């Protein structure tokens, strides 16, 4: 989409606020609607927008696919890792109360961490899926729409 000047300018302006909003949704999920999953999707949308409006190569340079794949695994590991940490701290699997001296604080840390795990995996998976779809040769050309 090299010919859409307006699109390119507008998206350049849009991407930073989208990322910021994703972070807000990620860390504000305890208080209002939102959480790791929604944040992950929004975070990924910023990258997908960049990939669509500029080019897949630009996006590849910004976030190499093999690194994104590692993040796909990382998020799930963070989540499950919290559970394992709880085991070592003497609780049941995913019993966040063990994470701090007082159960309520422990719950809070636990939720924050697992939501982070959710967000990372969701964002990375969405970006990976975009990479996978976008790098297949299309049969319908850009101009045919």
């Amino acid at each position: 989409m090299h010919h859409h000047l307006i699109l390119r300018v507008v998206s350049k302006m849009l991407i930073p606020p989208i990322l910021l909003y994703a972070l807000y949704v990620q860390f504000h999920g305890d208080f209002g609607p939102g959480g790791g999953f929604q944040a992950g999707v929004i975070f990924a949308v910023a990258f997908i927008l960049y990939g669509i409006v500029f080019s897949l190569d630009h996006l590849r340079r910004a976030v190499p696919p093999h690194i994104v794949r590692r993040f796909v695994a990382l998020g799930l590991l963070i989540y499950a890792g919290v559970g394992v940490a709880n085991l070592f701290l003497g609780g049941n699997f995913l019993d966040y109360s063990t994470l701090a001296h007082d159960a309520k604080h422990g719950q809070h840390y636990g939720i924050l961490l697992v939501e982070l795990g959710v967000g990372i995996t969701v964002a990375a998976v969405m970006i990976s899926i975009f990479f996978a779809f976008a790098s297949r040769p299309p049969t319908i050309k850009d101009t045919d729409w």
Partner: protein
Amino acid sequence: MFDDFSSSFIIQHYNYWMVIVLMMVGLYIVVSRGNLVKKIVGLNLFQTAVFMLYISVGKIIGGTAPILTGNPDEVYSNPLPHVLILTAIVVGVATTALGLALIVRINERYGTIEEDEIADIEQEIDRQESA
């Protein structure tokens, strides 16, 4: 008396019936259409209708979203169906992504995404194999 009963019965259940109509349309699309993309769209419709069923279960008339305000008189809708459906939506999009990826591959191999044309090609392969 009977009139009163039937009208209140309808008011109490119309929500479920609307949801069921949507489910039927979704299921009909999945079963009746031969286009692979359209089938996935139908499946999405069917699943979204099921989500509505769950959310209807959680609703309390006069209630608000289950985000605590500190007001002790507030009535909150049931949060559990919401949680279940958040999970189900994620499962749904995961299935959609997988299905679409399969469609892309099928199209590359078979050159079509229509079920009957694919069946013809597969029959041809069968015939060549046994020949």
